[in-house]
């Protein structure tokens, strides 16, 4: 996967860096819209980036 900083990614999908950070840490579950934007950006399917956990 191409190296990209949180700040760059944040700018590309127009959210704040804190949001990217919170998602990476699993502290924030993004909206469907944001998940789809991420999938388009990384050219992956949403399920390849996010997955259901036991507690969900």
């Amino acid at each position: 996967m191409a190296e990209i900083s949180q700040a760059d990614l944040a700018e590309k999908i127009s959210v704040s860096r804190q949001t990217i950070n919170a998602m990476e840490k699993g502290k924030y579950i993004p909206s469907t819209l944001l998940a789809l934007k991420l999938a388009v950006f990384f050219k992956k399917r949403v399920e390849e980036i996010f997955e259901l956990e036991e507690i969900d």
Partner: protein
Amino acid sequence: MKTRFLFPAKFRILGWLIFIPSLAAAAILIFSDYNLDNYLQSSVFAIINSDILAKPQYLTVIKNGIGDEILLVLILIGGLLAGFSKLKNEDELTSQIRYESLVWAAYFNFAVMLVATLFIYGLYFLNVMMLNMFSLLFFFIIRFYVMLYRLKKSVDEE
């Protein structure tokens, strides 16, 4: 992202500039038991007015010291702008934090009111009711900015 019900970001600073001084002025007045009623006497239109031991009057013009009205209007407008203007990095996470802070503030405010109802009596309860005019807004703003600060800190610590 589309955000509903929020003011443009430029109003946020203006909100703080109104909110802090008017809140400070109100705090000083309340704790010093200073009475504003005799100042800034003006004619105001009243939908309803009642003086002690007099019949209520409807849709009439009365004399009233408008200092407290001005102060409360400033607190409410300043607070609304400070709490409900877009942040410069507004996105879905900050919107979620805003809504959660609002729910938290509602619970906290009514918990405070429950306690005040049970344990504060007499004229002081009037003070409680007066503070309740803007306490929810106040608790919301505190909670919202504390949560934003924590979020910022958790990212910066990396």
